[in-house]
């Protein structure tokens, strides 16, 4: 569709058009002006560069403007409500950032002598301690680089424990309502994956689970609250059945933010759980920072936790880095150095600034906000499962039936209204899913504006104005992108245009 508001520059008001940086190349331009090196022996032994390296020539202000303009096309939690929720990232309190930038923490090198980093080890130990307290489990590894890595490390620990008792098993059970990374992690750990159906209430079908449990099942991987935003109320019965079969109970801790301070997973019979520090403990993520996925462990798994381990010795702390220095049976290293230290600083800052009552309120407010959306939108949108929900609320697309508008169109229309869309088409257990997680930091005023927008759009769809949705987004730097062509013929690398043939 032709753009009715086309401008001479391609800019739209103060939303500036910006070319790929390589297309702005002016050979010879540079932000710095250094004297030519004095010719002589370069000591490179013939390994000196022989050709250009393909970087564009640009002035300093050009580079600054380029990245600033790109950043203005971005949308994130610091711009407004972000209904994808903590999966991407929830609000990062600035206090965490300030502490992580203290020179004594931010400027550390991972190979410094242990005697010079006693404070950092104490910090890792304190962070580990509070994570164990909050989960009610006796052991932890801080090493995993992110949540999915934590899943793999947790399963490797389970495998090590089973093999140590001469009971190597072959299968892992994963309910349909679990996170999508769970079957991938089990497969990566060498297990055959079997799916367990959900019941009509959107929870694990306990009968179907028990029918599949036998002496060949190494573990079940459950997500609680599950990916429909529902608490698995049969979890104690599930844990008992899993343990009776001699298997371990892995819980995906991604949604721990819904229950932190209120429920200790260890009390539910869970053996192993990763904690996505960005989800529950407000560290940066989703392009803003590395993940971090500590894994808490029950007593039978503790001896097999990977290296390194921080241990209190006398008045100080030691870092156990070699299996020979350990009294247990560690499964070795799973990551270089000591895990994502900067994230541990932020997570500890978050826990200590909020305290136990504050963390409990995080869970309560997250659940309250999601249920506020549920209560005010359930008559406008369609709920596949009866509420109440936990920290996120799931709708399906039956409210759009016969309107000619799809979930995707609806999401694109929300962008024109200044909202990032919710999670779409996931989880797969419902048709045309719209999953919303407001998180605990959003005010009632923000939620009300979001709710009125969703209601207004739903009304418009039902009034027969499908065109409005099919044309969306209209007000963005780019109109609707061709996702199919992008997936079928992805262009991932910029290449210089072929040289023009001489006339």
């Amino acid at each position, binding site marked *: 569709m032709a753009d009715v508001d086309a401008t001479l520059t391609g800019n739209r008001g103060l939303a500036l058009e910006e070319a790929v940086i390589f297309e702005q190349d002016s050979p010879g331009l540079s932000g710095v002006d250094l004297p030519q090196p004095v010719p002589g022996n370069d000591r490179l032994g013939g390994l000196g560069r022989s050709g250009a390296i393909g970087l564009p020539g640009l002035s300093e202000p050009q580079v600054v403007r380029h990245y600033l303009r790109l950043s203005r096309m971005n949308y994130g939690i610091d711009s407004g409500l972000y209904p994808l929720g903590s999966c991407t990232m929830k609000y990062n309190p600035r206090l965490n950032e300030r502490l992580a930038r203290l020179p004594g923490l931010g400027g550390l090198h991972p190979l410094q002598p242990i005697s010079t980093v006693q404070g950092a080890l104490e910090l890792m130990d304190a962070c580990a301690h509070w994570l164990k307290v909050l989960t009610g489990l006796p052991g932890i590894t801080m090493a995993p680089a992110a949540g999915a890595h934590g899943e793999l490390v947790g399963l490797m620990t389970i495998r090590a424990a089973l093999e140590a008792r001469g009971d190597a098993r072959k299968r892992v059970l994963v309910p349909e309502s679990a996170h999508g990374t769970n079957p991938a992690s089990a497969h990566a750990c060498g297990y055959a994956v079997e799916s367990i159906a959900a019941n009509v209430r959107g929870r694990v079908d306990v009968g179907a689970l028990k029918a599949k449990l036998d002496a060949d099942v190494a573990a079940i991987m459950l997500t609680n609250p599950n990916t429909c935003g529902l608490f698995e109320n049969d979890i104690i019965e599930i844990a008992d059945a899993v343990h009776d079969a001699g298997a371990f109970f892995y819980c995906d801790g991604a949604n721990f933010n819904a229950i932190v301070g209120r429920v200790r997973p260890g009390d539910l019979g869970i053996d192993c759980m990763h904690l996505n520090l960005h989800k529950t403990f407000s560290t940066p993520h989703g392009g803003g920072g590395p993940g971090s996925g500590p894994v808490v462990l029950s007593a039978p798994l503790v001896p097999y936790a990977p290296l390194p381990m921080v241990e209190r010795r006398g008045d100080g702390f030691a870092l156990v880095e070699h299996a020979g220095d350990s009294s247990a049976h560690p499964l070795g290293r799973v990551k270089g150095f000591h895990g994502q230290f900067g994230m541990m600083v932020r997570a500890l800052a978050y826990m200590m600034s909020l305290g136990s009552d504050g963390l409990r309120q995080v869970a309560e407010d997250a659940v309250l906000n999601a249920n506020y959306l549920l209560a005010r939108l359930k008559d406008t949108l369609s709920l596949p499962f009866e509420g109440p929900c936990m920290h996120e609320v799931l709708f399906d697309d039956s409210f759009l039936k016969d309107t000619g508008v799809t979930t995707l169109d609806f999401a694109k229309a929300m962008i024109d209204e200044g909202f990032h869309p919710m999670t779409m*088409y*996931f989880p*797969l257990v419902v048709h045309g899913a719209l999953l919303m997680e407001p998180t605990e930091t959003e005010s009632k005023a923000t939620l009300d504006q979001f709710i009125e927008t969703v209601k207004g759009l739903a009304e418009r769809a039902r009034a027969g104005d499908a065109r409005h949705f099919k044309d969306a987004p209209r007000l963005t730097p780019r109109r609707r992108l061709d*996702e*199919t062509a992008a*997936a*079928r013929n992805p262009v991932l690398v910029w290449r210089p245009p072929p040289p023009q043939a001489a006339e």
Partner: protein
Amino acid sequence: MGIVRYTKEHEWIRVEDGVGVVGITKYAQEQLGDIVYVELPEVGAGMTKGAEAAVVESVKAASEIYAPVGGEVTEVNQNLADNPGTVNTDAMGEGWFFKMRIADTDEVDRLMDGVAYQEYVESLS
């Protein structure tokens, strides 16, 4: 044309001279949306009924395709590697996934015929 039978997972199998041709139904491709990638089994792979046989990826989701009956894969549709959209444009014809030698023809007989499948699809909406 041989007989065509359907599964509840929206695969179809057409039996021609004892060989089964397998694909996904028109309804399945509509639900998936534009298909961008198809992962096919190895020729010679043996599979039991209901085993994971292929993966189809659309702009919305990645889904497993299950073997409608047991048997051995004899040929795969190489055209889908470059033109996955064929599944959208001709799901029941050129968009076939693989051919298989059928281990037990009784398994075919137990699948739904066209009328039963149509009724099943209508019951879903």
